[in-house]
């Protein structure tokens, strides 16, 4: 079947910080370039979720006068705290003893979703064509194997794969260069990494799952500009993770939790760890009397420098966390994603203008502060595979004494889907029931995300082997999808005494955790019909 074709100089997939920065920089370098940007969410920002304490370095380079342009960057960090949590106690760590990468006094507490909406306005003003609600579902290749562009998803296909009356075929968007900026575990980026062996010689990528809730809290508990992080309880010493509590404007706090997806116990439920975390006296006193107004979750990159794939290939670039530019010790990926987008734009401009090979991206990257920053940060996350205490001691030495310049690089040994131990070797975890005041269940949480997918469409969470969840994963790992999914998509349901694996695809909040953590890599996340998924506000 032939599809309609539209040609551009540059096609960008994904309207997050990296894709939007690429678009803006391209138009700044040459306003005549035809640039379009596809976004799977119903509007820019609706699938963006991030802490977020924002370092303005990349934005200062991209839009130096951002302060004059009514940008949504308002709340400067005014106070910092770091707590080690015991079950009921908490120990405050002096901030002067924190590595400089974890000091935030020059940074801002922002909503990344709102920043993206604002960046999209800047991009559109420069002439970038932005198409929200159009997921890129397929990579198109030239005969020589180079990337030609992408095709958008067909719309109006029913559950069984038949065309409905409203069927609207996808179209082909062809670019001289295609930029993939889908964010962590992009479903096209994943294919590119495999096809072009971009991760050859690199460590396996490492991921985490991040949760975020926005609370409107009592005035007396609110301290605008306050940034707090915690480590320790409720996680055990061998599970990597911690929390953030950012006091933003309008009496809101951004409360979140990140857990490394290299955890071993299949009974661990990241969602319930996060809920339980809020019951700690040091946290409870902040949110008590307040009201939860938003919820969301998203996988994030933790692999850093060692796991960063090659970011260029014939006809295309991979930017931001679609490649993996997040700086884990800094707990920040927005400025690095933006910088990678800026570099990509510069490389593309020279590629189109001066016929230089796209591999100049690599050279530009190596000469940038982005490379330096990621290099210095490289040993922190792997050191935590020795446990929290040793990790902290090593990080102190590495980051404070040597400033990331130790003459060796620690390796990530396993991919996250390989780390689960069989259920019968691990302890069950008894999570407290939600109280519906401070802690909640998954369904009432998903309700706040505004998530929906039109019901009569193919399931976008594909099983390579439909029998595997019951025949193997349930038996061996007690089907951890029931627990790692933050939206209750996966359930084991007994029907007439027979176990059945149920996929509630309508609930999917596009976090990609299943695609990462499923022990046999049996779940393949593909794009649903355009506009589906969460409708995040100021996440």
């Amino acid at each position, binding site marked *: 079947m032939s599809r309609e074709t539209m040609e551009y100089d540059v096609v960008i997939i994904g309207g997050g910080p990296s894709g939007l920065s690429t678009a803006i920089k391209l138009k700044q370098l040459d306003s005549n370039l035809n640039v379009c940007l596809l976004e799977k969410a119903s509007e820019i920002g609706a699938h963006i979720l991030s802490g977020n304490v924002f370092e303005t370095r990349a934005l200062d380079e991209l839009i130096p006068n951002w302060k004059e342009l009514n940008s949504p960057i308002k709340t400067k960090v005014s106070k910092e705290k770091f707590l080690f949590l015991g079950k009921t106690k908490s120990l405050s760590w002096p901030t002067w003893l924190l590595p400089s990468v974890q000091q935030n006094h020059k940074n801002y507490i922002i909503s990344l979703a709102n920043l993206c909406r604002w960046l999209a306005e800047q991009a559109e003003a420069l002439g970038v064509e932005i198409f929200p609600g159009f997921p890129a579902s397929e990579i198109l290749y030239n005969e020589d194997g180079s990337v030609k562009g992408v095709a958008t998803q067909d719309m109006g296909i029913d559950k069984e794969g038949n065309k409905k009356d409203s069927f609207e075929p996808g179209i082909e968007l062809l670019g001289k260069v295609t930029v993939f900026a889908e964010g962590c575990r992009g479903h096209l980026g994943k294919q590119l990494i495999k096809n072009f062996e971009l991760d050859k010689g690199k460590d396996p990528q490492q991921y985490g799952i991040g949760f975020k809730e926005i609370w409107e809290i009592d005035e007396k508990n609110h301290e605008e500009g306050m940034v707090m992080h915690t480590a320790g309880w409720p996680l055990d010493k061998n599970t990597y993770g911690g929390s953030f509590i950012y006091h933003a404007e309008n009496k809101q706090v951004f409360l979140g939790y990140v857990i490394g997806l290299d955890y071993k116990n299949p009974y661990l439920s990241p969602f319930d760890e996060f809920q339980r975390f809020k019951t700690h006296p040091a946290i409870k006193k902040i949110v008590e009397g307040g009201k939860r107004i938003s919820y969301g979750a998203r996988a994030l990159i933790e692999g850093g420098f060692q796991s960063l794939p090659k970011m260029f290939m014939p006809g295309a670039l991979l930017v931001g966390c679609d490649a993996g530019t997040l700086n884990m010790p800094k707990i920040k990926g927005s400025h690095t994603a933006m910088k990678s987008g800026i570099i990509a734009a510069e490389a593309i401009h020279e590629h189109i203008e001066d016929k230089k090979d796209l591999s100049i991206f690599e050279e530009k990257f190596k000469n940038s502060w982005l490379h330096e920053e990621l290099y210095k940060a490289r040993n922190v996350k792997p050191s935590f595979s020795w446990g929290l205490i040793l990790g902290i001691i090593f990080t102190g030495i590495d980051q404070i004494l040597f400033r990331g310049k130790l003459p060796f690089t620690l390796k990530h040994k396993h991919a996250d889907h390989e780390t689960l131990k069989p259920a019968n070797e691990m302890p069950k975890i008894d999570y407290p029931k939600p109280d*519906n005041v401070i802690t909640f269940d998954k*369904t*009432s949480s998903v309700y706040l995300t505004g998530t929906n997918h039109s019901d009569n469409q193919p399931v976008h969470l594909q099983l390579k082997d439909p029998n595997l969840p019951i025949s193997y994963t349930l038996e061996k790992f007690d089907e951890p999808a029931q627990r790692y999914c933050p939206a209750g998509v996966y359930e084991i349901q*007994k*029907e007439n005494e027979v176990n059945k694996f149920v996929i509630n695809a*309508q609930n999917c909040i596009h976090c990609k955790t299943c695609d990462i953590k499923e022990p046999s890599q049996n779940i393949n996340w593909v794009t649903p019909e355009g506009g589906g998924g969460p409708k995040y506000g100021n996440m």
Partner: protein
Amino acid sequence: MSVLLIAEHNNKELRPFTLNAATAASQIDTDVHAVIIGHECGAAAKALSELELIKKVIQVEAPHYENFVAENFAPVIVKLSENYSHIISSANTFGKNLMPRIAAALDTSQISDITKVVSNDTFLRPIYAGNAFATVKSKDNKKCVTIRPTSFDPCESSGGSAPIEKAEAGEEFVQTKFIKREEIKSDRPELGTARVVVSGGRGMQSGDNFKLITSLADKLNAAIGASRAAVDAGYISNDHQVGQTGKVVVPDLYIAVGISGAIQHLAGMKESKVIVAINKDGEAPIFSVADYGLEADLFEALPQFLEELNKLNTIQK
């Protein structure tokens, strides 16, 4: 000043929501007059005059009023409105179709679908499909108000003896022609308007087991609902779904069977007058909104329920 209630009827008898609207009208002012417009509708006018709360009935008859065309009705009421401070009707399709036409002619900002009379100029009404409630105060001299029937009890249908006055008919609006009305008479009431709804969830375990729900619904003359989980599992078609992207229902009695009570479902039924939950899991969220909770295995409880109902002979049709 008095309140004018627009009666809804089928020329033979009153439609039941007129009784609910009469109650609402009487909460604004006790001097409630009712207008009945129709063709050969004497019997309905008489029934109207017998309503406890009605002080006077105005009957307007003409052949072109037989089919309740709003374009014909509105001028009659506009003409009568001079003597009234409020004009009231039910917010069902009859009132929704008619009242704005009257309000616009009177240059009045209508207040739709109220659930409570706060005072004679202030009302409570749901917005955003009942996800919020607005208190609104009308600044217009004449107020056009439609009322949500299920929020007001029906008044007594006897005990009154209001005088019936005839008023002159208006001209026919010839640009609109009534052709036909097909009353859908199914054995089962519609989910959206049923007085009783019996819903099944994932706990039903199979589509086949839904026949337990069907028999209970038959007995109670109820509509059949379902949770999204049951629809997703393929037990029942999605036109039975209550809650998110499904229907919002406000029956007098909602019986949730084997439904855990995902918040999406609760949003679709929590305005029901009486909620019954039957669930094995005593911690299920559905119990937090249920007036009567029964912690039991539904496969035992449903047959018993039916048996108990059979012992009663007073099931209303």
